[in-house]
C-alpha cells in the first residue's frame, strides 16, 4: 500500500510542477491583457516602465510561440563553396573555370557534397587537384581534406559575421545555427522590414579600393569591345539587338565618362561578360558599373561605367570603424571609415603616389564613388559616398563593421509569416484545441460515465504537461505543434479506452469491480506499452529527420505520448483506487 501512496504524491507533484512552470505564461498573458486595456499611450508606457522586470521575466520563462504564430523570418543561407574554392586555386585557367562552372550547376540542383563533386569532375578530366590547389606534391585526398577544413572554417566565420550584422541591426532573440557543411539557418522573430534584412544578410561586404585606368583607356576599351561585339558573329543575324554593338546602349561623354541607362543595366552587364568583350580588356583591368544611378538632365537615370585595375590597392580587411553620417553639405549620406595601422600606412603610400588620379571605392563589385586623390591621406580615413539614403548608409556601416564574408552567401530557403497571419494562426489553433478537447471530453463521459470522467481528468493533465514541458524547456509552440497536441488528445484516450474495454469484459465475466479494475489495468498494460513505444519511435524519427515545422509537431507528439503513458497507467488508476476506497464505484461505473 505504501507504493500507492507514492503514486498519489507523484501525481500531485507532477500536477503542481506543470502548473508552476506555466505561471510565467499566465502572467505574460494577463500583463498583455492589462496593457491592452489602457487607452492612452502614456498610461501603457508607465505601466511597462513600472512592471519592466516582471514583463521581462514572464516573457523569458513563458511559453514561446513559433515563428509561424508570432510572425517572423526563417532563412536558410548557403555559403558559395565554389566561389571559395576558386579563391583558393592558384593558377586558374579556362579549363579550370569551365569545370568549376559545371560543378556549380550540379551543386545548385542537389544537396551533394561540393568537394566530392569537384573531385569527381577533375577525376573525370584526368586532372589532379594539386594542379590548381595547394602544393603540387599533395595527393588528391590531402587536398580534399584541406578544402574541407577551409569550407568548415568559412562556414563558422560566415555565421559569426552574419550574427554580428544581425546583432548590430538589433533583432530580439535571433537564432543562428549552422547545418551540414554549407548552410546557415537564421530565425528572426517579429521582423518589421524584411526587405532591409535580406539586403543586409546577403551582401558579401567585400570592400576594395581600386585605381582607375589612365585617361583615354576607357574610351579605347569601349571602342574595341564595340567593334568586337558588332562584328558579324557566326551565330544569329546582324539585326539581333545584342549584335548591334555596345554603343546602342552605352553613351560616352568626353574621354573618360561613359554611362548606361537604368533599363539597360542588366543587358550591358551581360554583354560585358561575353568572351569577345572580355578579350578586349587591357591586362589586369575590369569594367565595373556604378552602384547607384545618377539623374541626367533629361530625367533619365544613368549608371556610370568605370575601367579599373583588377588588383585592388587595398581591401576592406583593414577597416576598423565605420560610421554613417551626412556629408559636408548635410544632404548626402555617407559612411566614414577608419583603418588599422597597417592599412593607414598603406593608404598613405597609395594616396601619396597617386595624387591627381582617381581611386574607385568598390563594394561587392559595384562602384560607389571614384574620387580624385587630392593629397596624401596620412590618418587612414576614407569615405564612401554615392549612397541613396541614410538607411542604406546605416546598413553599410553595419556590414563594414561586421567584416566581409569569406565567400558569397545565398538565400536558398525563406519562410516569412507576417504578424497578421500569425494572429490568424493563433486563433485557428486555439479554436481547434478547444473544439477537439470538448469533443473528446463529451464523448468519453457519454460513453464511459464515471470512467470517462477520470479519463477526462487525465486528458486535462496531459495537455497541461505538454504545455508546461514546452515552456519549461524553452521550446516553442508552432501551428503544427498545436496540431500535434490535438492529435495527441485523440490518441491519449486510446490507453484509457483499452483499459476500460478490458474492465468491461472482466465485469461481464462476473468479477467484482476491484478485481476487474486490477485485471483490466494489468492485462491492457502490454498493449499500451507497445502502442506508445511505436508512436514514440515514429515521433522520434520525425524529430530527427524532419526540420522546422515538422520538428515542432514531433516534439509535442513525443511529450504527449509520454505523458499519456503516465496519465493512463498511474493517474486514472489512482483515481479509481480512491473512488473504490470511498465506495463510490459500482459495476455500472463504466457504462
Amino acid at each position: 500500500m505504501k507504493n500507492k501512496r507514492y503514486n498519489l504524491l507523484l501525481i500531485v507533484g507532477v500536477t503542481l510542477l506543470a502548473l508552476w512552470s506555466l505561471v510565467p505564461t499566465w502572467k505574460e498573458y494577463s500583463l498583455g491583457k492589462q496593457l491592452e486595456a489602457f487607452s492612452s499611450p502614456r498610461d501603457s508606457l508607465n505601466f511597462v516602465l513600472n512592471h519592466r522586470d516582471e514583463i521581462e521575466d514572464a516573457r523569458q520563462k513563458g511559453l514561446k510561440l513559433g515563428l509561424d504564430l508570432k510572425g517572423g523570418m526563417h532563412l536558410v543561407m548557403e555559403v558559395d563553396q565554389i566561389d571559395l574554392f576558386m579563391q583558393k586555386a592558384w593558377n586558374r585557367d579556362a579549363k579550370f573555370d569551365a569545370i568549376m562552372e559545371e560543378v556549380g550547376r550540379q551543386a545548385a540542383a542537389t544537396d551533394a557534397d561540393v568537394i566530392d563533386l569537384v573531385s569527381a569532375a577533375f577525376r573525370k578530366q584526368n586532372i589532379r587537384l594539386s594542379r590548381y590547389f595547394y602544393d603540387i606534391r599533395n595527393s588528391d585526398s590531402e587536398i580534399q581534406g584541406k578544402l574541407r577544413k577551409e569550407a568548415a572554417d568559412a562556414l563558422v566565420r560566415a555565421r559569426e559575421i552574419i550574427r554580428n550584422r544581425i546583432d548590430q541591426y538589433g533583432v530580439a532573440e535571433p537564432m543562428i545555427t549552422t547545418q551540414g557543411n554549407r548552410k546557415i539557418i537564421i530565425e528572426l522573430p517579429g521582423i518589421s522590414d524584411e526587405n532591409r534584412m535580406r539586403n543586409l544578410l546577403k551582401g558579401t561586404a567585400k570592400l576594395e579600393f581600386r585605381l582607375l585606368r589612365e585617361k583615354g583607356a576607357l574610351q579605347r576599351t569601349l571602342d574595341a569591345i564595340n567593334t568586337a561585339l558588332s562584328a558579324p558573329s557566326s551565330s544569329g543575324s546582324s539585326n539581333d539587338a545584342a549584335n548591334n554593338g555596345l554603343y546602342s546602349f552605352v553613351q560616352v561623354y568626353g574621354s573618360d565618362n561613359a554611362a548606361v541607362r537604368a533599363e539597360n543595366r542588366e543587358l550591358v552587364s551581360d554583354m560585358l561578360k561575353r568572351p569577345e568583350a572580355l578579350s578586349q580588356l587591357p591586362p589586369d583591368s575590369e569594367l565595373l558599373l556604378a552602384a547607384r544611378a545618377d539623374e541626367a538632365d533629361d530625367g533619365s537615370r544613368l549608371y556610370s561605367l568605370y575601367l579599373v585595375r583588377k588588383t585592388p590597392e587595398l581591401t576592406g580587411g583593414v577597416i576598423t570603424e565605420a560610421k554613417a553620417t551626412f556629408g559636408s553639405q548635410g544632404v548626402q549620406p555617407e559612411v566614414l571609415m577608419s583603418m588599422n595601422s597597417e592599412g593607414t600606412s598603406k593608404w598613405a603610400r597609395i594616396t601619396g603616389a597617386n595624387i591627381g588620379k582617381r581611386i574607385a571605392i568598390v563594394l561587392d563589385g559595384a562602384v560607389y564613388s571614384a574620387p580624385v586623390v587630392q593629397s596624401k591621406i596620412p590618418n587612414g580615413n576614407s569615405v564612401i559616398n554615392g549612397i541613396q539614403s541614410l538607411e542604406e548608409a546605416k546598413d553599410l556601416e553595419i556590414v563594414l563593421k561586421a567584416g566581409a564574408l569569406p565567400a558569397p552567401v545565398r538565400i536558398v530557403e525563406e519562410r516569412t509569416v507576417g504578424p497578421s497571419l500569425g494572429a490568424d494562426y493563433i486563433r485557428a489553433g486555439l479554436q481547434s484545441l478547444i473544439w477537439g478537447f470538448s469533443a473528446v471530453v463529451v464523448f468519453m463521459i457519454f460513453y464511459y460515465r464515471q470512467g470517462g470522467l477520470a479519463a477526462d481528468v487525465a486528458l486535462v493533465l496531459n495537455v497541461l504537461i505538454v504545455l508546461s514541458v514546452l515552456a519549461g524547456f524553452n521550446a516553442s509552440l508552432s501551428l503544427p505543434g498545436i496540431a500535434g497536441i490535438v492529435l495527441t488528445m485523440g490518441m491519449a484516450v486510446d490507453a484509457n479506452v483499452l483499459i476500460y474495454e478490458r474492465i468491461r469484459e472482466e465485469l461481464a465475466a462476473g468479477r467484482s469491480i476491484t478485481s476487474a479494475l486490477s485485471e483490466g489495468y494489468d492485462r491492457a498494460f502490454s498493449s499500451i506499452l507497445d502502442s506508445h513505444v511505436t508512436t514514440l519511435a515514429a515521433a522520434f524519427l520525425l524529430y530527427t529527420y524532419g526540420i522546422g515545422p515538422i520538428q515542432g509537431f514531433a516534439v509535442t507528439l513525443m511529450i504527449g505520448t509520454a505523458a499519456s503513458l503516465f496519465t493512463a497507467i498511474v493517474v486514472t488508476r489512482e483515481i479509481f483506487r480512491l473512488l473504490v476506497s470511498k465506495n463510490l464505484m459500482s459495476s455500472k461505473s463504466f457504462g
Partner: protein
Amino acid sequence: MRIFSNTSIDFLGRRKIAYAISLLLLLTGLVSLAVRGLNYGIDFRGGSEVVLRFEQDVPVGELRSVMRDAGVSGTIKQYGMDRSFLLSTVFNGDTNELKSLISGALNSQLKGNPFEIVRIDAVGPSIASDLKWSAFKAMGAALLAILIYVGIRFELKFAAAGVVAIFHDVLIVLGLFSLLGGVFEVMPLEMDQSIIAAFLTIAGYSITDTVVVYDRIRENIRNRKPSEYEQIFNESMNRTLSRTIITSCTTLLTVLVLFIFAGPAIRAFAFAVFAGILVGTYSSVFVAAPLAFEWIKRSKAPVKLRGSQKA
C-alpha cells in the same frame, strides 16, 4: 453505453473479399500515381509562394491579368482564407525583387484596394532535394524501427504482416492524394513536409491498431493447437473491435476538428490523417492479422510468440 458488445464477426472467413477490396484500392492508387503523379508542393519541387490578402475582394481573373502584365509568371489561386490569394512562381533567391514587382503592379492597377503580403515561402532546388531525401530517410527508418520492435515483441511473421499493413495504408492514402490532388480549390493536396509527418502519424497509428489485435492473439494463443488458430484470431479481433472503433472515432473526431478549424496550412495534413485512420482501422482487422494467419497456416509450425508464456 456500448456500441459493440459480444460481436462474433467471421473476419478471417471474409478475408478474400477484403483482399480484393484492398487490391482494388491499391491498384487504383498506383495507376493514378503512374498516370497523374503527385502534386508536389514547393518543399519538394522548389519554388516561391506568396500569400496576398486584400482589403476587399478581387476577382481572381483580374488579379491574374494584372500579374501577367507585370511580368510575374506562375499561377494564382484562391487561398483558403477570405480575400486571400496564393501566387506560386519559380524560385529566385531574391524575394525582394519579386515583392517589389508584385507591389508595384498591385499599387498601380488596384489602387483602391490595399493589400498585404502575409506569407512568403521560397525553397531553392538544393533544399528541395534535401527535404525529399530526409523525408525518404524518415519513412524508411520508421518502418525499419517498427519491424524490429514488433519482431522482438512478437515474432517476425507478425511484424512483417504489420509492416505490410502500414505500406497498404500509406500507399492507399498516397494514391488518394494523387487521385484528388489539385481537384479541389480549397484543398490542393500538395505533397509537402507536413504530409510526410502525416504519413508517419498514419504509420504509427496503423501499427498501434495492429499491435493491440496481436496482443490479444498472443494472450489467447498459448497452449492451443494450430487447428484452433482461426477461431482464436477471429475471437481476438472481435474482442478488440470495440476498442478499435472507439479509438478511431475519438481520433477521427479530433482530426475532423483540425480539418475544419486549423486553417489551410493544416488542411491537407488533417485530410491525410483522417483517410489514414479510416484505412488503418480497416487494415488492422482485414490485412495485418489475416496475413499473419495465412503465413502461420502455411508454415504449419505452432507459433511461439515472445512473452506469451507469462502473459
